[in-house]
């Protein structure tokens, strides 16, 4: 119940954050702009709209996850609001989970709004909507959850600016881990082991990317989908657990 109260308060805080609206407006503009771009392209209209649409939802959602996520905890410490919460019968992990859940709700609402924007564009251009699109959107949301947890983890021990840089870096690397593995395969012995280790430790965010499947009408089996969601959930849980451990030891000066 305490976690939920903090989550609702965080959601309310997010709703009154101008940054969120700016990003949302840009996302909708980007999705809408695919109509204009379509006129400059020969053929493949449908692919273009789907590609730009899903890409925009992913990109702006990640920006919200990072830039609102890094402020979740650091802003509370900076403004000393956390003092009044932690001195009440609220465990630190409850505070952290509440903040996380709050932003997750915000991201969910945003994803729904952006998805509706995309659906409107698809409908206007008479592009057939397939079930795969919703699977892709669901996985994009799972990716947001992982990225938010990364941002939250960093913000429990470092400043907002550094957290943003680290999280952005991890987001980019997370989409390139396959290359890391390929690179490792060309080596041997210790270097290969190290690169393999890094490959398994870092989040493999490319797993959540089904844009190609949607655009090229490829299928993903239900069990594969479950596996990817489980991977995202487990990764998030580990991140949140680590964040709680760090947060528990922290002094609020």
């Amino acid at each position, binding site marked *: 119940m305490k976690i939920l109260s903090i989550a609702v308060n965080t959601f309310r805080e997010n709703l009154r954050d101008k940054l969120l609206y700016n990003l949302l407006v840009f996302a909708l503009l980007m999705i809408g702009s695919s109509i204009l771009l379509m006129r400059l392209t020969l053929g493949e209209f449908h692919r273009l709209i789907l590609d730009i649409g899903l890409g925009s939802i992913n990109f702006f959602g990640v920006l919200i996850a990072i830039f609102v996520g890094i402020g979740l905890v650091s802003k509370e410490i900076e403004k000393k609001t956390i*003092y*009044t919460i932690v*001195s009440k019968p609220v465990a630190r992990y409850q505070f952290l989970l509440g903040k996380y859940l709050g932003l997750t709700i915000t991201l969910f609402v945003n994803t729904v709004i952006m998805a509706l924007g995309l659906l409107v564009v698809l409908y206007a251009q008479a592009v057939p909507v397939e079930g795969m699109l919703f699977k892709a959107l669901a996985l994009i949301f799972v990716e947001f959850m992982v990225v938010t947890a990364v941002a939250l983890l960093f913000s429990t021990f470092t400043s907002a600016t550094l957290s943003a840089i680290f999280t952005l870096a991890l987001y980019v690397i997370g989409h390139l881990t396959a290359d890391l593995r390929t690179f490792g395969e060309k080596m041997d012995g210790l270097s290969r082991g190290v690169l393999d280790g890094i490959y398994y430790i870092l989040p493999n965010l490319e797993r959540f990317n089904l844009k190609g499947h949607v655009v090229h009408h490829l299928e993903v089996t239900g069990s594969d989908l479950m596996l990817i969601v489980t991977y995202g959930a487990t990764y998030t849980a580990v991140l949140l657990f680590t964040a709680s451990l760090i947060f528990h030891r922290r002094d609020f000066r």
Partner: protein
Amino acid sequence: MTPNYDLVVQTEQLSKIFRVGFWGKRVTAVESLNLEVRHGEVFGFLGPNGAGKTTTLKMLMGLIHPTSGHAQLFGRELGDPQTKARLGFLPESPYFYDYLSSREFLGFYGHLFGLWGKVLDKRVDELLELVGMTHAKDLQLRKFSKGMLQRVGVAQALINDPELVVLDEPMSGLDPIGRKEVRDLILRLKEAGKTVLFSSHILHDAEVLCDRVAMILKGCLVACGKVTDLLDQGANHQVELMVDHLTPEGLDHLRPLTDKVVIQGDRMLVVLKSQQEVGGALEIIRASKANVVSLNPQKGSLEDLFIREVKEHRNPSEART
């Protein structure tokens, strides 16, 4: 540390060392602090800025982990959720969630204590009434003045009807009216049987409000006890004597007994070294046929004691002379 249930706050050798900077240089914020706050008293925690007051309070509130030593609240170790339900805390110059109205703000804190629905509404209304903020219940906190923020801050600390109320610098940054309101509120809490622990560097407030005070300097406790006892200890027992028409010869006789003489026309203000000199001084005055206008024994103030302690810490030899 054996639990003492008669004490609301008890610390034993409580210390905090911070590591600052890149190389983790050790800075002692609080050193071997022994403190006891009893049920139902108003306890002032005094010291200059940077003395370690806030660090100590934060340790008690579970915001900072002590480096060594022990502390108990209501006879239980720090961090016990049951203990936290019995205390209220107002941090120094807080900002709060400025996108909330005072009603939403207090409602949120109420939820953290499991208060919902009508019980919560009633409690919020009572508190807004208590701190005189009923008129601004639907106004966003971002539109509040500092005094108003401080008042909803106090309301926030009282949402769970706590037995111990801890206020960090509750008077700082407030105008005289705001300060008086906080003072009245503290007295009202005392009447209601609450224990109040507050830190301050405004000594006058402490002198008026506190049953007992502790003075801390550079993380070390330098004085602790009843305000009256400390004032007696600290008083220099000087006596101010106002005399009319004292002859120059009379003044010459009087001088050895005085610390200071201020002449204003026919009238002069004589500060006697101690109360023992009063008899002798009066005899000299009578002999020279002068009139005594007034005689005031000087009461020491916490401020005098405070300044002396600070001096003693900076330069022990200077303070003794």
